[in-house]
């Protein structure tokens, strides 16, 4: 075992670990629960493992998870650092709620320089990894440097080892997770990258059992460090400030979540597939329309009736939204995966594929090879359009008839991307890499800042254009603020108009900014009272710190910190623009027929957004706003 070296000189690792509900102690002098107050810094080049204290002021200002990871990113990943350089880092942080007895306290946030977008990336993942890391006694983990040979990291409470990983190299994520399960207990206590990442495919995700840290290519960053996996087993306690009160709050949250998310348990996020199609915003054949004629065979009821096996749950989740499916007959017989809404959109309608068996198979190989289902689906949809327009041919595709609707060709193309064969080698470079080689094809690329769009077409909900445009990690429906419910139901907005959308999107982004920093899944957030008007006392019962009134400010602080980072990386107004197709081509059919988010409409929304954010016209936070948010130390 590698000897643990404490950054602070403190060698008594049991001091903060082992705190129980019975024995309340201060963590870092500010909190009396929720946090462990320290994190691991593991350098793969010189094989050092350090335990470092976290500045409690950072936890107060940025909570944990996404916020805290961004704060470390700001200090440690300079502009000149290339995604695949040894100087890039994997920054992983739990939130205060991660690993506690609350519902779906499953999440761990990640920050790294993205190979796909070549800028700041935030992402997060569920499963049991985050909770076990926290129970090992650590709020987070920073991996730096590059190992000379393949390795994996094994964390068993305060015993941390960098182990030889040559035997794992070349294996799929499923194989790796199965092998390391023997050491830690469950496959979803293991975080691993797949063969695609080893081939530096820029769309490579990280797999945690059946869950993914999908977007932005973090898997390829792992592989570039010769790091195949991190496995963790934690058996310690997480302190709770007021255990009895916390227990009651949690009980209420679980009841609320069970009832209000019954459809998530029944159908998962796939329940929205047919609904979005009806609303006319279900991207089809590379966003050429918003209505998919093959919807009936990719909708939730069809999935449930023909493929469903069982629900899968993340740590302490009463919802268990994941719907494990199996193909029972035909060419893809035996394929198993849990397709959710975005995956069904990307590998279904966006590629024109109505064969749900092909979607299950494609999802399975994406998980096993370690590829983001959203990015790969949108990139293959783009390639299918080029094929149909004659810009690429069978000579490029290795003989594949890469037409919309050809599920077999889609599955084969995913494998080619993972192996970098034929045009798969170019597609593996992601949208930015493709644009460099095929600049004239950019009008068919559905991406912002290099990240492909998710499965909503903004021509059906104009605010969604701003979501994609201003999301700090590129075109993401989560980080960017999911606006569809508010645009449709609040009664305050016209879904086909610009007015008020800037303010709406800011509020949604700030809300998401703090939720991603808490360590919970967004599906259960309302059970805790975590909305744009945060209520409840769960954080006070847990940490002893009066967080709730500050949550929206924390979310806004996180968003502005991320904006400072991406400004520093050269992203400004010009990079907040949405794809040409959405601005110039009218939606041909469905509820959004005739609508387009023209330059005029989009710029009107963007101006309003910058104004309510307190940013200048080029998308830079003003000094005054940074001071208001106590970020003036970063100016």
């Amino acid at each position, binding site marked *: 075992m590698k000897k643990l070296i404490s950054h602070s000189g403190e060698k008594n690792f049991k001091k903060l670990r082992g705190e129980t509900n019975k024995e309340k102690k201060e963590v870092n002098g500010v909190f009396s629960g929720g946090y462990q107050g320290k994190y691991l810094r593991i350098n793969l080049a010189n094989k050092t493992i350090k335990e470092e204290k976290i500045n409690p002021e950072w936890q107060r200002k940025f909570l944990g998870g996404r916020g805290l990871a961004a704060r470390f990113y700001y200090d440690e990943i300079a502009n000149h650092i290339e995604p695949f350089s040894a100087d890039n880092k994997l920054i992983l942080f739990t939130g205060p709620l991660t690993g506690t007895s609350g519902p779906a306290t499953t999440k761990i946030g990640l920050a790294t320089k993205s190979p796909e977008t070549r800028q700041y990336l935030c992402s997060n993942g569920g499963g049991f990894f985050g909770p076990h890391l926290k129970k090992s006694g650590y709020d987070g983990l920073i991996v730096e440097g590059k190992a000379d040979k393949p390795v994996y990291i094994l964390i068993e409470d305060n015993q941390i080892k960098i182990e030889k990983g040559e035997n794992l190299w070349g294996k799929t994520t499923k194989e790796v997770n199965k092998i390391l399960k023997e050491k830690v207990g469950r496959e979803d206590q293991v975080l691993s990258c797949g063969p695609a990442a080893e081939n530096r495919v820029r769309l490579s995700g990280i797999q945690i059992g059946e869950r993914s840290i999908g977007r932005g290519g973090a898997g390829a960053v792992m592989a570039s460090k010769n790091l195949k996996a991190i496995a963790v087993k934690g058996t310690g306690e997480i302190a709770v400030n007021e255990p009895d009160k916390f227990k009651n709050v949690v009980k209420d949250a679980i009841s609320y979540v069970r009832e209000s998310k019954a*459809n998530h348990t029944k159908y998962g996020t796939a*329940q*929205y597939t*047919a*609904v979005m199609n009806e609303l*006319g915003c279900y991207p089809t054949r590379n966003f050429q329309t918003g209505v998919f004629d093959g919807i009936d065979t990719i909708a939730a009821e069809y999935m449930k009736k023909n493929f469903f096996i069982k629900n899968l749950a993340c740590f302490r989740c009463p919802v268990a939204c994941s719907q494990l499916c199996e193909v029972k007959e035909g060419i893809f017989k035996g394929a198993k995966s849990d397709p959710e809404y975005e995956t069904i959109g990307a590998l279904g309608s966006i590629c024109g594929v109505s064969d749900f068996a092909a979607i299950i198979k494609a999802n399975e190989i994406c998980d096993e090879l370690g590829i983001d289902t959203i990015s790969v689906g949108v990139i293959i949809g783009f390639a299918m359009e080029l094929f149909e327009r004659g810009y690429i041919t069978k000579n490029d595709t290795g003989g594949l008839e890469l037409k919309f609707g050809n599920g077999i060709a889609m599955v084969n193309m995913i494998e080619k991307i993972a192996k970098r064969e034929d045009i798969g080698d170019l597609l593996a470079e992601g949208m930015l890499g493709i644009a460099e080689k095929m600049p004239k094809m950019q009008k068919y690329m559905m991406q912002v800042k290099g990240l492909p769009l998710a499965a909503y077409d903004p021509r059906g909900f104009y605010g969604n254009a701003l979501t994609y445009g201003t999301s700090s990690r590129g075109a993401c429906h989560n980080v960017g603020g999911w606006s569809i*419910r508010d645009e449709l139901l609040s009664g305050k907005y016209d879904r086909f108009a610009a007015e008020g959308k800037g303010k709406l999107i800011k509020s949604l982004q700030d809300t998401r900014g703090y939720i991603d920093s808490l360590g919970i899944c967004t*599906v259960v957030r309302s059970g805790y009272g975590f909305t744009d008007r945060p209520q409840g006392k769960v954080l006070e019962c847990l940490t002893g710190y009066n967080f709730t009134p500050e949550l929206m400010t924390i979310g806004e602080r996180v968003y502005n910190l991320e904006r400072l980072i991406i400004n520093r990386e050269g992203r400004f107004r010009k990079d907040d623009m949405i794809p040409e197709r959405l601005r110039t081509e009218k939606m041909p059919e469905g*509820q*959004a027929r005739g609508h387009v988010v023209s330059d005029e409409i989009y710029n009107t929304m963007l101006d309003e957004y910058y104004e309510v954010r307190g940013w200048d016209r080029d998308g830079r936070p003003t000094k005054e706003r940074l001071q208001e948010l106590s970020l003036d130390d970063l100016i």
Partner: protein
Amino acid sequence: MKITIKYFLDFKKISGHSKEELFFKNDKVNVKDVFKMLNNKYQIEFEKVVSKGIVMVNNRSINQLDKENTILNDGDELIIMPMISGG
């Protein structure tokens, strides 16, 4: 006058259809009148059930219109779908 109704997920199960047409003798019909007809037809309090879902007239939520008092015209399409959340 004729109103077309589209149902999604649980509402499809309640009605047994994905789509149906309702005919009214009266020309002044609002969303509430449709619910009344559905209450009788399916022996279930539709107002209560749809309070957990979304009701749209053509491509707008009734929240953006006059809620249950929204006037319907001949040929209008009413959509009843589950509540959405995401992101």
